């Protein structure tokens, strides 16, 4: 067993800052909320202005007047931890949450597949950083020791249980996550490091502080098992992303939408699914909701085939956002799946570059995202003699095709006019030569679309070939001539 702990020291800040890509210039801090709010975390710009952790919010605002301040959001932090745990499930099968700010992953079984510890850690770190977090990774044979090393910023991994005791010797007891009263009592006795606590008699420690302290020491040194509840991604996906500052323009939400696409893609991968339909809600500021008339602008996203790639999801969201006008500023984005379908992984190409031919986003999805769902149509044939009803337009290409193999015996033009047009005037000016026909089409008296027509192929004086018919509304051989198509 080898555990990797992912510790996120700036998580309260990151749950807001990851929604925007220019978080470094603007001073930004997160307060604790409540009656006497304190600063919980501050970004680099705010810290250079003198804002410190534990400072009163009023004092921080006095130091940096332009400080953007949001209240701490424990739910968002849990969601972020879950999202990171979901992401680590693409590296391992066993991940576990350690609230409030860490995730554990068992990586002993994944080292060979990912090409060694260094590459695995680099890939995990890169992926988490791409999600807008600054993780601190540490590796140890026991989960508790991995957490201690991550909190104490030990960078070199510990791979064997024997090496745990010397590595943990100088670590502070506080990193074990013990009760604060226990820590105070021990500190008063001069016991501040794990090594000092190990040197004390075990039975005396257990009598004085209860079994918890001794157990924690044993678990950290991998002397007793330390079972962790495995994290399972939820059966349905629903997440929110709060922005550091309200956005006035839908196009500016593209960066946040990309973050949501990352989370959704990780969840889909962990559950082996592809998304078919989803809803992206742009939640407006509370005091604007009455004026707008609705709490959020909801965009329905539809995919022609189950989708999972980050680029595909993000592109569809970008296109939808680009043609959305915001009635009011947006402070939060929420993404939820409406319909999913199992999607197996694609086999890798034999040679590098083999899989490059697979399109990132299907063309039809990209066109529909910008032009509307009905802008791209396919055709299917129907078993009907009437030309208007012998084909239907469909927006689902999987339904297109020749459902009944309708190959008419008589010629059919490649172009159909949307509506037949009368050509009596053109015929009066110059005669058209009949080339083929007539073909009688008489059908539909039962469904209201009654037609009785004689279709002919005719050549116009200019050399074009037309599909014309006589419409016998009253009887036989008494109708007017109509143009219905061109033999293009």
């Amino acid at each position, binding site marked *: 067993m080898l555990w990797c702990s992912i510790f996120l020291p700036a998580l309260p800040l990151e749950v807001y800052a990851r929604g925007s890509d220019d978080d470094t210039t603007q001073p930004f801090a997160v307060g604790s909320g409540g009656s006497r709010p304190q600063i919980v975390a501050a970004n680099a710009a705010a810290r250079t202005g003198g804002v410190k952790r534990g400072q009163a919010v009023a004092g921080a605002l006095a130091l940096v007047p332009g400080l953007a301040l949001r209240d701490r959001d424990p739910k968002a932090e849990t969601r972020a931890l879950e999202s990171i745990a979901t992401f680590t499930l693409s590296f391992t099968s066993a991940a576990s949450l350690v609230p409030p700010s860490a995730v554990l992953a068992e990586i002993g079984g994944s080292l060979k597949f990912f090409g060694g510890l260094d590459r695995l850690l680099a890939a995990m770190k890169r992926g988490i950083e791409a999600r807008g977090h600054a993780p601190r990774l540490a590796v140890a044979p026991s989960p508790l020791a991995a957490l201690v090393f991550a909190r104490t910023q030990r960078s070199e991994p510990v791979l064997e249980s024997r090496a745990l005791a010397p590595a943990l010797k100088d670590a502070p007891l506080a990193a074990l996550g013990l009760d604060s009263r226990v820590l105070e009592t021990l500190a008063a006795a001069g016991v501040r490091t794990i090594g000092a606590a190990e040197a004390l008699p075990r039975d005396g420690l257990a009598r004085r502080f209860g079994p918890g302290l001794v157990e924690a020491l044993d678990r950290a040194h991998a002397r007793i098992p330390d079972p962790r509840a495995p994290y399972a991604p939820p059966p349905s996906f629903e997440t929110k992303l709060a922005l550091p500052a309200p956005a006035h323009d839908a196009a500016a939400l593209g960066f946040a939408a990309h973050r949501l696409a990352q989370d959704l893609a990780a969840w889909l991968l962990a559950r082996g699914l592809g998304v078919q339909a989803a809803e992206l809600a742009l939640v407006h500021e509370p005091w604007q909701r009455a004026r707008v008339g609705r709490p959020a602008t909801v965009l329905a996203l539809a995919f022609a085939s189950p989708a999972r790639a980050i680029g595909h999801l993000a592109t569809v969201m970008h296109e939808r956002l680009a043609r959305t006008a915001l009635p009011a500023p947006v402070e939060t984005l929420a993404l939820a799946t409406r319909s999913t379908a199992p999607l197996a992984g694609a086999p890798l190409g034999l040679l590098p570059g083999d899989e490059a*031919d697979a*399109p990132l986003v*299907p*063309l*039809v999805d*990209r*066109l529909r995202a*910008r*032009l509307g769902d*009905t*802008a*791209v*149509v*396919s*055709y*299917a*044939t129907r078993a009907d003699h009437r*030309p208007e009803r*012998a*084909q239907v337009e469909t927006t689902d*290409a*999987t339904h*297109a*095709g*020749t459902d009944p193999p*309708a*190959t*008419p015996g008589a010629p*059919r*033009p*490649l*172009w*159909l*006019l*949307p509506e037949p047009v009368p050509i009596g005037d053109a*015929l009066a000016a110059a*005669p*058209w*030569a*009949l*080339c083929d026909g007539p073909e009688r089409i008489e059908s539909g008296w039962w469904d209201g679309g009654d037609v009785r027509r004689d279709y002919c192929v*005719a*050549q*116009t004086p*200019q*050399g*074009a*070939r*037309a599909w014309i018919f006589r419409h016998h509304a009253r009887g036989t*051989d008494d109708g007017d*001539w109509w143009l219905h*198509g*061109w*033999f*293009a």
Partner: protein
Amino acid sequence: MGQGTPSVGHPRDRKLTLSSPAARLAARLAHPAIWRGGDCAPEPASLPTGFPALDAALPGGGWPGAGLTEMLLARDGIGEIALMLPALGSLQRARRDIVWIAPPYRPCAPALAAAGLDLARFHVVRCARPDDALWACEQALRAPECGAVFAWLATRDERVLRRLQVAARDGRSFGTLWRRPGDRGGAASAPLRLGLAPHERGGLLAVHVLKRRGGALGHPVVVDLEARSVVAPGIAVRPRPLPAPPRRPDPRTVAAHEAVRTTPVRRRLRAAS
């Protein structure tokens, strides 16, 4: 035009025996480093048209598979789509889609299916604004799953056409712009421009090669659309001899129909006897 026959470019098309001096000269000149004025530029990704006479007139022996083609169409309904159907069918068999952008009429699905097209790989894009059509055209040309893009665009902006040509080249798509002859601009960026007009004999289509990468072609290529039976590439089809012109105009005209209908039966009988 070194050898008297101004029409066809490539030496391999000339039926000459190796014994004659001209053949020996042609074999010597067939070296890839030698370029002659009458030759067409090599087109690596060409797409057989299905009509041998037209293949011989086009650079590379077919439609440009990675580039833009401009079609100047005198009027609709002269067999312009039927001319493209063999190439579209071969693209679909290569598992690539066909996209028509802003077509002027509604495509007739039973006719397309009867011509061998797979309707599941055929998409029509309708655009409310001209800008949308341009955007959709560029996206489709660049999409790897899309093999042929037919666009009926209203623009004659040279920069736009240049951009579409680059998109077709990068996306390895067979892009076709359908335009009216009056829309012919100045310097067009499409490497191939054809004019389509009905031939004076029925059932034939005259293809004027207005611009190609190679020597100019003075006379139109006459294509017999009804002889189109090339389904699989590689099967040569002997072109049907051109039919003799009809001696007199076809009496079965619409006007004749009208005359028959309005004539009383008795007079018709008398005329028949």
